[in-house]
């Protein structure tokens, strides 16, 4: 339902603003000829070292950026042909970090997810409040409802932001390193939450991550990005191999089936020589 076909992209720093570059022959490309297809109900993982273009690819898929060449299509139509509101009704995004300058409460942050469903002068009604409360409950953050967002811990904030994305009631969820900066317990909470959303609501997801075990346990498919190019893509079990981990990160890793979970587990052993 969401596809990127032969996408090229580069940032060009010019004065105060970042603008798009010209044709693919000039400048350093953040993404070169990247193709990616996300089918309904799938959880696609994006793996790659820092600076490999994961965040940029997510921003292209949400229509925040426009590719230099190539196309990003949503339900068969170019993402650029949708209005911001139309995209927001279909795609919700969870950023790596969310800051709030002003003292919004957790509930107010979640209610902001209702924005694309309201008219310009429409105020939220009881239905919107119910959806927001359900989203808080689904992420285990109902107790934080009246608390100022800024006073929550990193993991609590991340779950409230996911609740805000749920309140958006979109079919697709794009998550940028949702477990980065979270401790081990919260990492499992987030993985469980995403798996449950996919199972219960059929939410389609694209998740960028550095956590190989998150990728192994959660994602149905993986796309490996190296220096802006697709190194490998396909079903998780086919892509998550010793050879690919070595090529992607330069790391020697044991990939095996864990006897307790019966899932793929990756144990990095050391720098590959």
């Amino acid at each position, binding site marked *: 339902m969401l596809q990127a076909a032969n996408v090229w992209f580069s940032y060009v720093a010019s004065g105060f603003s970042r603008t798009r570059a010209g044709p693919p022959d000039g400048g350093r490309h953040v993404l070169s000829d990247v193709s990616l297809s996300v089918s309904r109900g799938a959880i696609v993982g994006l793996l790659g070292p820092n600076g490999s273009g994961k965040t940029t690819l997510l921003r292209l898929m*949400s229509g925040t950026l426009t590719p230099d060449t190539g196309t990003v299509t949503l339900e068969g139509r170019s993402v650029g042909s949708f209005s911001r509101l139309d995209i*927001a009704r279909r795609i*919700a995004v969870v950023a790596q970090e969310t800051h709030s300058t002003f003292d919004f409460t957790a509930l*107010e942050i979640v209610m902001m997810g209702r*924005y694309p469903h309201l008219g310009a*002068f429409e105020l939220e009604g009881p239905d919107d409040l119910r959806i927001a409360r359900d989203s808080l409950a689904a992420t285990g953050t109902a107790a934080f409802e009246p608390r100022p967002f800024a006073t929550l811990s990193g993991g609590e904030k991340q779950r409230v932001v996911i609740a805000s994305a749920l309140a958006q009631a979109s079919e697709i969820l794009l998550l940028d390193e949702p477990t980065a900066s979270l401790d081990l317990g919260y990492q499992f909470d987030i993985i469980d939450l995403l798996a449950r959303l996919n199972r219960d609501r059929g939410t389609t997801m694209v998740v960028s991550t550095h956590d190989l075990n998150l990728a192994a346990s959660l994602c149905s498919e993986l796309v490996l990005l190296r220096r802006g190019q697709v190194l490998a893509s396909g079903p998780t079990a086919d892509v998550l191999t010793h050879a690919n981990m070595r090529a992607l990160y330069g790391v020697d890793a044991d990939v095996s089936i864990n006897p307790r979970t019966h899932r793929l587990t990756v144990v990095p052993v050391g720098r590959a020589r």
Partner: protein
Amino acid sequence: MIRRRLAIVVAGFGSFLLLVCALAPLAGSTHVSLTRAFDRSIPFADNVDAQIFFIARLPRVIGAALVGAGLATAGVVFQALLRNPLAAPETLGVSYGASVGAMIAITLLPGTSIAGISTVPLAAFAGSLGALAIVYALSRARSRGMSSTVLLLGGVVLTTFLGAIVNFIQYLADFTQTFRTVRWLMGSLDVGSYGPIVAALVPLALAGVGYATLPRTLDLVTLGPDAASARGVDVARAERLALVSASLSTGAAVSLGGPIGFVGIVVPHLVRMMVGTDHRLVLPGAALFGAAFLIACDLGARTAFAPVELPVGIVTAIIGGPVFLWLLLRRVR
């Protein structure tokens, strides 16, 4: 919930404003009898009460209300857009941009108008938009909002720079004109007639139309452009609309009362303390409370050292300076 809270905010601040509006024209160095002021049987030329009420006091109260509302709402918008609670027309240098525009119109194009609107508010609008463009370019140089240090230093530098231009224009102008503009630069609501008020109403009404569509967008923009965009906000369009609206209201306010300080900082902060952070409550709250706040300050300016009437800018600075420092200590990390 939000509906009820909005009704409470409008009713509460609205009735406070009405109360202040009703009392302020009656107070002053000379006692005014309302019955005599509205007595149509006495000719206006012989009716001192009516003259004081309708010529000295009423335009001043209306002017204070418009200026207070204009500066306070502009402060709210700047704070949201720049994601910084210390941003305001005064701290960003936008007030002084408007002053330069207005002074050029007063000194070089006296008495001219375009399409029936006096050039003063138009030039003030152009000046505030120009100053704002500089501030905004600075803020965009950093991806995640502007640090308070850069923001405030930028505002100080811009204000000093524009102050030099103001001095230059004054130096060229003749002496009587300089006397008038010096009083105006102190922030004075000694309007004296309804002409400037009518001229300022046009840009203020346009700003009001822009503000009406903004509040929810501002809430989302405070989370950052990416977060706002992901939730359906056309950020570039929203920023343009917000900047033009805030420039219009700053320009109108400054053309009427001069660069009155601290209203755009103090009022939004007090309103947030009372109603929370939701801009659907903060923006109308700041408009109503800003109007009432400046009427009250001007009442103080008129009566504290009666019969001498102080420029209101002195009163707002005496109140606002300490509040601003307190905010600075609390918010800047």
